[in-house]
């Protein structure tokens, strides 16, 4: 076991992938000399040179578009968007190009690129640097979507993303970079597309991903002290979505809550709640409840920012009331 941070694990995944596969290149703003705005690509330029670790101008649409072209012609690009909030600027290249090329061209070619980015609240970074925009990606057929919550997954999901045949959007959480854990990266990882059941309990299933996993686990600890046992499912990838695992546990437990940091309306939690309701209706004691971000932009004020997204106390409170 080695202790490492989420950031270290991401960096190691890039390092190992680049060592193994000379076609892997990185491109993005400040990924080279600066080492990444959040330090993920630190010193990789020293290891692999400026030809493979490419500092780009501030030109997001062209960064993503160049990755598309590189991926179509034999490279494995990892493009980086410094903040997921900039994804809108690149949505043509991502949504109209990367996502549709395989399909439009009748299956002739795929776009095996990874778009690494980070999102979420926690730094008083304001309305344009704190969003959780995974629903936009999930709403675009053709794009895969990975959102690691743990140090192990930061490593394994990134390695696995770099072996996928199709474009993967890989969204890290800005509040997790300094999270530490003892990990054994040589242990066999869960396969790509499989959810992880992080805790087993008979009273309620909490389905979540990314940072909210940690709040859900904390809430589950608090609930346990009150005699309520929660199952906590970490989705790890939202596309592919491991609905089999969700179904199995929801059917066994009969009660489910979905937790997401993204805004409530038309969000990931809405999609999950709809599917669970459709597929597990006869097993459910109660309607599936969504706990998600408020339907508002994120403020720079730390008070308003924290109030805008779910936390452990809210999850505990809602789960407690559902089970009662």
């Amino acid at each position, binding site marked *: 076991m080695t202790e490492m941070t989420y950031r270290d694990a991401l960096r190691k995944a890039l390092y190992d992938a680049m060592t193994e596969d000379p076609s892997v290149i990185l491109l993005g*703003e*400040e990924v080279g*000399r*600066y080492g990444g*705005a959040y330090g993920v690509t630190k010193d990789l330029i020293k290891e692999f040179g400026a030809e493979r670790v490419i*500092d780009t*101008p*501030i*030109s997001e*649409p*062209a960064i993503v578009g160049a990755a598309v072209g590189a991926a179509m012609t034999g490279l494995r690009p990892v493009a980086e968007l410094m903040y997921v*909030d*900039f994804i809108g*600027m690149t949505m043509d290249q991502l949504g109209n190009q990367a996502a549709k090329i395989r399909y439009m061209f009748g299956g002739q070619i795929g776009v095996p690129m990874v778009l690494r980015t980070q999102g979420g609240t926690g*730094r*008083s*970074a*304001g*309305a*344009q*640097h704190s969003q959780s925009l995974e629903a936009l990606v999930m709403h675009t057929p053709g794009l895969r979507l990975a959102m690691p919550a743990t140090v192990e997954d930061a490593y394994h999901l990134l390695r696995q993303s770099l072996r996928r045949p199709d474009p993967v959007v890989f969204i890290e959480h800005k509040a997790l970079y300094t999270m530490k854990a003892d990990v054994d990266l040589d242990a066999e990882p869960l396969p790509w597309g499989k959810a992880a059941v992080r805790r087993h309990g008979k009273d309620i299933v909490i389905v979540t991903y990314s940072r909210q996993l940690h709040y859900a686990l904390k809430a589950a600890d608090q609930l346990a002290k009150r005699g309520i046992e929660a199952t906590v499912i970490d989705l790890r990838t939202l596309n592919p979505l491991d609905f089999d695992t969700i179904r199995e546990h929801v059917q066994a437990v009969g009660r489910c809550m979905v937790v997401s940091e993204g805004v*409530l309306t038309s969000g990931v939690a809405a999609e999950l709640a709809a599917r669970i309701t459709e597929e597990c209706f006869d097993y459910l004691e*109660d*309607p599936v*409840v969504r*706990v*998600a*971000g*408020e*339907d*508002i*932009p994120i*403020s*720079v*004020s*730390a*008070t*308003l920012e924290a*109030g*805008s997204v*779910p936390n452990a106390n*809210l999850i505990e409170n*809602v789960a407690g*009331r*559902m089970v009662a």
Partner: protein
Amino acid sequence: MTSPATNSQLYDFYAGMRRVRTFEERVGELFVRGHSAGSMLHLSIGEESAAIGVCSAMKPQDTFTTHHRGHGIFLARGAEPARMMAEIGGKEAGYCHGKGGSMHIADMSLGHLGANAIVGGGIPAVVGAGLSAKIKKTGGVSVAFFGDGAMQQGILYESMNMAALWDLPVLFVCINNQYGMGTRIDQATRNTNLHERALAFGLEGRSVDGIDVEVVAEAARELMDQARAGRPGFLAVSCYRFYGHARKDKSPYRDPAEEEAGRLRDPVAHARAQLVSAGVVPEAQLDTLDAEIAAEMDATIDFTVAQSEPPLASMFRDVYAPEEPEPEPLRTRLDRVLARE
């Protein structure tokens, strides 16, 4: 200001630039003392001549947008420093009630259409504001302030093309502090003669050295006059970012010798030396002025620290117009949903 007034334009420019610098230093202090909302604070120290020089050519009916390093520009257009500082502290008393912060400060009453945290994000709005000024015949010019990093955003070129095509009263001002985060301008583009791009679109284009605020002001006056007459322009002001990109950045990617030389390109020190050597004002008078400004800016911190956080319920305000219903809070919805069971 209690200092005796002089008839010198340079004295006024100096005072304006000193206010900007001192304000920015206090922003740094607010951060160190733990009262800022976050650390994404971008100081314009070293760039004061761009704000003061260009804004000296602006009129009350003019509008503008800024990038994320826009404190100085806003001050130059008449912002109240205490309300600015309170916004940077995320306080209710700030210009945007703690929702915007340093990177999203604005005051419509001063023509400030908003600072932006998206590089290039504020640029196209001046095309629309120029269109408004033209159609409504306000006589106003709309000015976009942005950094050298935004020179590589495609939206600038779409915007310059439209402004030229439609003969709009618009000025694009690039504050070229040589760096976009850790990337030096010559690492981001082959042609660093930035104004040449504007010429290619049929705009008036100039590049000036920001060391001399009077040179900046003169170029801005000429370009603003032309813009007001429907000939849009572009001005690049060359300067040096004295400190890190944001508060936590120590600029390890910069050569210390380069930094030292860069910090000699100091428009405030330059103006001060000119005032003294030309005998416009005795040095002691400038010292008095500096002390007054320091006291004014110190007070902004005290003000900010004493202010309250925005009330939690205010987070639902201003998503939509005040006459519209606010979004339903999650907890209200949950109470209803859970009660039904």
